[in-house]
């Protein structure tokens, strides 16, 4: 506990915001579905880190419990998402999201 508080809370907040912003930009600019996927994971983990930090500073374990839940949900989501990607790749031989534009109007 003491060790954690050596770093001020502000640092955690700035760091997580930066991480989140990188994730957002990654999602917006990348064309590779796998990379977008990783960017989403980045955003999720930035939120997790922030929760853990607040939990430590406020002496409230609830935040860490949240983190576990989010990790479980994220794992499930990754499993489905990757399965989808594999299926897409098998049928189109690409995972470029700009090619996948058949569903419109």
């Amino acid at each position, binding site marked *: 506990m003491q060790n954690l508080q050596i770093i001020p809370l502000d640092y955690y907040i700035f760091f997580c915001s930066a991480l989140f912003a990188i994730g957002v930009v990654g999602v*917006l600019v990348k*064309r590779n579905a796998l990379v977008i996927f990783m960017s989403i994971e980045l955003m999720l983990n930035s939120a997790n880190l922030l929760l853990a930090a607040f939990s430590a500073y406020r002496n409230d374990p609830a935040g860490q419990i949240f983190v576990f839940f989010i990790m479980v949900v994220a794992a499930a989501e990754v499993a489905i998402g990757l399965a989808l990607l594999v299926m897409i790749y098998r049928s189109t031989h690409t995972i470029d999201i700009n090619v996948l*534009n058949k569903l419109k109007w």
Partner: protein
Amino acid sequence: MFEYIWLVPLFPLIGFLLIAFNFRRFKGIAAGVTASVMVLIPFLMSLVLFSNLIAGAPARTVELFSWISFDKLSIPFSFLVDRLSVLMLLIVTGVGFLIHVYSIGYMKEDAGFNRFFSYMNLFVFFMLLLVLGSNYLILFIGWEGVGLSSYLLIGFWFKNQEYNNAAKKAFIMNRIGDLGFLLALFILIKTFGTLNFDGIFAQIATVPIRTSTITIITLLLFAGAIGKSAQIPLFTWLPDAMAGPTPVSALIHAATMVTAGIYMIARSNLLFVMAPATLMTISVIGIATALMAGAIAIYQNDIKKILAYSTVSQLGFMFVALGSGAFTGAMFHLTTHAFFKALLFLGAGSVIHALHGEQDIRKMGGLKDKIPVTFWLFLIGTLAIAGIPPLSGFFSKDMILLGAFHINPVLWILSVIAALMTAIYMFRLLYVVFWGKAAVAENPKHPIHESPYSMTIPMAVLAILAVFGGLLGVPHLFGGDDRIQSFLAPQFSASESLIKRGETVAEGHTELWLMIIPLILILGLIFLVHARFVKNRSIVQGEPKRSIFANLAYRKFYVDELYRQFFERPVTSLSSFFHDVIEIKIIDRVVDQTGVLVVWIGRNIRYMQTGNVGAYLFYMVISIILILFFNLFNK
């Protein structure tokens, strides 16, 4: 015995459910027998109750359960067993049982035999609820319930559109009166805080209440009675209700349901005597109805229509009695009328049965020798309703005439005229149907035949009652002890003493003359009718030439046409206006245009769906950022 009163309405209900849910399992006359037994058991129970009351048992309220209870208002589901309700119980179950038995013979060949008896039991159930209820709300349930069963039975042969229309007419005209009834209930709750009979009547005696309030309540209740008991201006449904099978006309539209209005007013006698203006109105409407319906009955040619108008006229009589404060007279006439009018209807049914559905009396004649049993029973009914002593109609009608005389001699004279009309139309019917020669030759394939025992025996029992029923109320003048008066005294004595009588009090000789004068006139008229329809029998087929009055009466004073002109047509044109303009041009258009708008919007903004995942992600992020900003500035 009193605790088991709930069994009385339960049996017909069980009968209804049994027959209604085992429609195909009842074969032959099984349903008819079941239904009859389900009415017989309550009748026997009523007899026991009746003897208990005669022996001096006090009236009792039997509470089954607390039904509606909130704030200060509490309405228990309870039955009131007193002399008035037991008298009605006896009439409903007794006459009801006889008519059930009769129907087994009458309806035997009908495809809807089982359905008919399930409806009949349903009707008896609601009627018993009506007479047993210890507050206005239970009475109202029964009131609406008998209206429903009446509707179902009038439209029993539902394949005939005219019969359906008659059923709808009866139902709708009853609703008009019921609206008044319902409003009266609301005002009663507001004024007295209860709907229980004993609660209201106890407060009337002790708490000062404005006369105007009571007048409004009683007038609204009377509006309900006008609808149910077919008085001016809502009487036109009853003659049309003859579309139903004849036993239905006998039970519902002569003996029991239409007398519900009389019963309700007699039950509320303490309320009504506090409102002299209402009593006036009741008398006036009663006598007007009695005269008008009597006049119409003289000129009708359909055997059931004549009896229907006769019923309306007799109901008018009962209202005259109620308006004069002669509540006992009204209940007495109700009782005897139930006997002889049920008998007459069953007799008419027997005639129709013998003639295979013929109802036009001009085509009948000479039936005296062909169906002698029916003839003799019909004769007894006719003598009873015409008021020939010592049959029952004489005594009950006399009690009403006397009550009318006490209020106003003019009312007496008008009542006597109405009584004379009764003799005219009844003897015209009798002479035309049973004397002379048939105008239409007998069909050799379907010979005229006497009805089976299941039909004649109930009629015979009713005939005995019609002959001896009057002995219930032989006036003191003839050395009788006026048993019905003393039997009902606990119900009515308090209010009958409150009635303001005119200065003309008939006692001794006057009372005797008041009986003899109408009697002589009636006998004289019977001879005239005899001369017209038997000696110089001239029955014109088709449309004869009629005097102005006769034509008016034959056309039923154009009441139906007037209603059509003044109510039906404006409502119809209003409806078609609402349909053609409001519905088609406004509502439909708004609905259609909404659809068109949605389609147009969809067509234009669907291009946002580029199919490009990156674009969607961009929309999502932008939207989230916008929401965040919105929340930030909205703090």
